[in-house]
């Protein structure tokens, strides 16, 4: 059992969820509540990682993370190290790859909140922030839970993108999914089996916990 790889995987999944949550809330709400030119293009760009082969996405990310590119160069100037083959690199890649999983459920949830609920809240004296926290958030809660569950589970299982951007550096970029592949390559099927079972268990627990949370609603929509 490669505990280091499990810890890299869990850290990656947790950070991805944490960082994507505000992004998903902002993008999902904006896309659901406003109309603007170029919205279909915006939605298509967000959905792109869903349909792209992970190795292709990983390839382009790897290319754009090089120190002689704008993204990689900027990162190098800011933090003094490159992005490829680092934890920061696979985290950034994971954020891009998981964007649709975080945005789409939240967007769908905001779309089901009638616009006049917001207006009713304003007319009742709630500020836009209070309206967001006390009226909108409780109503889109199931969408947020779905987004987190999908992002977490998908990050744990991500293989192609991580391998392309991060390789398999122990303690840095070797996630559990990659460790399993390495074990199989080394004919250690027993080790691979234990880790696979571990990944299965963690995935199942995550999904179970979040769906349990989402199901705890006492009200039904009128």
């Amino acid at each position: 059992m490669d505990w280091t790889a499990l810890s890299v995987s869990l850290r990656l999944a947790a950070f991805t969820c944490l960082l994507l949550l505000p992004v998903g809330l902002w993008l999902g709400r904006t896309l659901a509540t406003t109309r603007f030119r170029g919205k279909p293009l915006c939605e298509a760009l967000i959905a792109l990682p869903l349909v792209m082969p992970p190795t292709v996405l990983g390839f382009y990310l790897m290319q754009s993370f090089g120190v002689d590119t704008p993204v990689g160069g900027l990162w190098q100037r800011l933090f003094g190290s490159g992005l490829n083959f680092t934890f920061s690199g696979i985290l950034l890649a994971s954020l891009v790859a998981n964007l649709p999983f975080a945005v789409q459920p939240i967007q769908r949830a905001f779309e089901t909140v009638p616009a006049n609920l917001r207006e009713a809240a304003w007319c009742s004296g709630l500020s836009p922030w209070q309206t967001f926290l006390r009226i909108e958030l409780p109503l889109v809660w199931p969408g947020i839970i779905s987004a987190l569950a999908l992002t977490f589970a998908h990050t744990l299982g991500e293989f192609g993108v991580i391998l392309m951007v991060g390789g398999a550096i122990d303690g840095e970029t070797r996630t559990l999914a990659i460790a399993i592949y390495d074990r199989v390559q080394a004919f250690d099927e027993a080790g691979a089996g234990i880790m696979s079972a571990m990944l299965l268990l963690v995935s199942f627990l995550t999904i179970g916990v979040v769906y349990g949370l989402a199901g705890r609603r006492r009200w039904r929509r009128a």
Partner: protein
Amino acid sequence: MPELSELPSRLSVRLHQSGPIPLDADFHCEAGELLALVGPSGSGKTTLLRAIAGLYRPASGRIDCGGEAWFDAGQRLSLSPQRRRVGLVFQDYALFPHLTALGNVMVALDPLPPQERREQAMAWLARVRLDGLADRHPGQLSGGQRQRVALARALARNPRVLLLDEPFSAVDQVTRRRLQRELAMLREQIRIPIVLVTHDLDEAAALADRLCVLHGGRSLQAGPPEALFRRPASAEVARVLDRQNLFEGEVVEEGGARRLAWGAWRLEVAEGLAALPLGARVSWYLPPSDVVLHRRGRPSQGERENPVQARVETLVVLGGVTAVTLAFDHTERTLSFEIATHAARRNGLARGEPVQVSLLATGIHLMGAETPPDMTRMTR
């Protein structure tokens, strides 16, 4: 028991814009008055209500309430909905589905300390007779109960204006009658302007002190329902108010007296003819109550007043009342009125039969302006 502000606050609204939703409205509502905005769908009723609430910002105009400017396009002033303090009951009530009835009302009492909020919200629920259902979520309430929660939530804020957007359209008829009666009773306790948007003319006439007739975003006429129904300012108003007996005639002189020429007849009119120039084409309206059917073979009251011959086009028996429409040779328009069904039987009224009726001179209402031809096409 929570009390509403006793400050007199007159609401006055003057808005204008050419698009995207054309508006040209000018009306006011006194404290304690119920003003109904009536008009067909698309006439801008809801848009005006939203503008008063601060949810819609028109291109130009001004909204004042109790001497305070809420909106002034000239000065680029527009208070937020939060600062206007309006109570708005939405057409579908817009209750917060995740909060209980009590929670919904408490939202509107936000600035108060929690214990006081709770007490006041309970008092408001009691006032709309929902005290036993405070812990129910909107999904567990009937349409009428939801409407009451929405009303309690709107009033709990101690609003300076109460706005009701088709508040009775989503409930069955029995509930509607009961809620209307409750609103009429509630009105005696609150001294703020109440603006009701409705497309139901009977409802508007029953509940409102004054109606404001809207068409295509324009406010055409405002006044007490009875005055508007009997004396619409124009043919357009008459059509919006679903008045049937709308005709056109010409001002003529006969034997030294002014008459209204209508086909072969020269009608006496009690009021308004003298002010019009000879030869003017005018629209005129006659309330159905001012049509008197002559009895066959026996003279009846008012027989000599504007007698005209017609034939019965349709007879529709609606229980004890029969709706009659009469056709004439000189016009395609028909004259409608109602008589008791037994009277229709006794007079032997039947489709195609010739009849004679009197058009009471005091009922004939002249409307100066000729109907523009495009309006005629639109409604024909």
